């Protein structure tokens, strides 16, 4: 198995994503702010669902999307110009993480290369690797995914004998950068994908969370026959219900359904019915507007504080996103952020070091800040603490030094992003064209990383 977020690692290696204890101000985990959920209304609906339909909703079901939930999904997808199609196009998931693994297992064959927009959501890379696939960075320029270069990359990889059939991307308010691919680029990307025989995987958890309500035409809406779309209720409703969906052309949906049946037997009918009932009664407008406004405010507070603390002419660079959960900082002097995460933890603030979003440890001079779940009155304090830690970057914490120290950590130590086997497998040590060769196969392995459970996992993989 490939480690992702929750492996036991020291604070340096693993930003404690979902912990919020003590005096720690967390800018790490991408959690929605559930203070906005109408809990009283929800509890009444859940009670009603249990009383009237508990014997059905709590029973096993089949790996099909509940028809009752189709209108809720159709509504969400239409807001970004997408088309849910019918129940035949939809596959229920327990969130997009399951969807990613399902499509890695169900639509690709082990050994195949899957192109990924980078920096990438680590859960995607981990899911693909767990399915035996080889993530490879898709070419990018200043505007994001570069369709023309993509054509050449695909040709080159195939000439090398690789099978390349899928491209994974998160085109709107991306995790971790917050960037959005222009609509013009989307059309170009889809054209090249068609020409090159690439299936596009569009992961879109944040598309409806534009701060001013603006949306962007989804890739799925432009070319529904060549896009597999991952949708989720985690960010527009709540992640604890573990409910999402895949929208795919029917033949692919059938294959995905067979895969999800093996993975989970059936989705939660209860969860689907709860969401269907919520939508039927309240629609999405009110909650979406509330989330958008909340995140707009939080992002503004964080960006303003960053500007105050770090200035705009210093070594740290970032852009204010127009939506989503994240701010992405890059150090122009190539300071390694893994070490800074330790300093930040000592100050009582957490973030995710950017290396976690590189396919092979690149992006080590970046970091992700999540503003979505930070308490309003703690953001300025958190950023002040962060600034104390980041200013230390001016001293000697350079990426190269950090890489050198990590090189001595020993291959096979627990890695959180890359499969452990990467350390001794040339074939898997794929770096995209922009990969930083200085941060190679030892990605994600902190110098101080203990030899935890994942070492054993690595051994298993190698033995397999």
């Amino acid at each position, binding site marked *: 198995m490939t480690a992702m977020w929750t492996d036991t690692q020291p604070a340096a290696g693993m930003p404690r994503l979902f912990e919020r204890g003590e005096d720690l101000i967390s800018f790490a985990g991408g959690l929605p702010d559930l203070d906005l959920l109408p809990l009283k209304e929800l509890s009444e609906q859940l009670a009603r669902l249990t009383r009237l339909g508990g014997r059905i909703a709590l029973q096993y079901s089949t790996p099909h999307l*509940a*028809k*009752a939930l189709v209108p809720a999904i159709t509504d969400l997808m239409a807001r970004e110009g997408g088309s849910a199609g019918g129940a035949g196009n939809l596959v229920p998931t327990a969130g997009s993480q399951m969807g990613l693994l399902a499509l890695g297992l169900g639509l690709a064959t082990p050994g195949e290369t899957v192109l990924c927009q980078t920096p990438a959501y680590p859960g995607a890379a981990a899911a693909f690797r767990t399915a035996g696939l080889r993530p490879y960075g898709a070419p990018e320029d200043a505007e994001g995914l570069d369709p023309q270069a993509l054509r050449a990359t695909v040709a080159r990889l195939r000439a090398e004998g690789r099978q390349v059939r899928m491209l994974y991307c998160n085109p709107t308010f991306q995790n971790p950068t917050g960037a959005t691919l222009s609509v013009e680029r989307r059309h170009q990307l889809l054209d090249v994908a068609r020409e090159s025989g690439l299936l596009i995987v569009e992961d879109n958890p944040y598309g409806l969370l534009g701060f001013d309500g603006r949306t962007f035409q989804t890739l799925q809406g432009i070319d529904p026959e060549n896009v597999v779309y991952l949708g989720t209720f985690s960010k527009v409703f709540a992640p604890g219900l573990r409910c999402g969906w895949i929208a795919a052309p029917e033949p692919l949906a059938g294959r995905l359904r067979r895969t999800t049946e093996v993975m989970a037997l059936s989705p939660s009918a209860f969860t689907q019915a709860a969401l269907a009932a919520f939508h039927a009664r309240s629609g999405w407008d009110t909650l979406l507007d509330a989330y958008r406004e909340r995140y707009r405010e939080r992002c503004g507070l964080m960006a303003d504080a960053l500007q105050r603390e770090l200035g705009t002419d210093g070594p740290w660079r970032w852009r204010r996103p127009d939506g989503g959960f994240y701010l992405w900082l890059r150090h122009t002097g190539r300071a390694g952020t893994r070490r800074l995460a330790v300093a930040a933890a000592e100050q009582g603030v957490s973030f995710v070091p950017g290396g976690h979003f590189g396919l092979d440890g690149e992006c080590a001079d970046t970091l992700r800040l999540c503003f979505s779940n930070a308490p309003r009155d703690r953001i300025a304090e958190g950023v002040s603490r962060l600034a104390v830690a980041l200013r230390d970057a001016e001293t000697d914490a350079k990426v190269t030094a950090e890489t050198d120290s990590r090189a001595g950590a020993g291959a096979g130590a627990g890695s959180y992003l890359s499969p452990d086997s990467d350390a001794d497998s040339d074939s898997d040590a794929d770096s995209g064209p922009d990969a930083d060769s200085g941060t190679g196969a030892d990605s994600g392995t902190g110098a101080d990383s203990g030899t935890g459970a994942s070492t054993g996992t690595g051994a298993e993989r190698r033995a397999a």
Partner: protein
Amino acid sequence: MNQPQFDQLVEEICAVRVTDSETPLVDLGVDSLHTVALVMAVEDRFGIELDPDALADLSLTSSAGLLRVVREQLPGRAPAPSGSTSAPSGE
């Protein structure tokens, strides 16, 4: 609410065409979970609480059968309109 109005509600919530009010919903293509969603919406719309036991076999419920159960629960319990059966139904 009369039967045609209720049929319309069923059509709206279940995304089906109610060709005959007495046809079991399952035969109209409404699955059991969708029937649950319908009954939840009906409770909400009428401000009533239905007896789950009266709906024991949801898959056999028809639009007319469901409306009869609803009328049983309505305050003041208006007599059923002529031409329809007045007995509560567990359809």
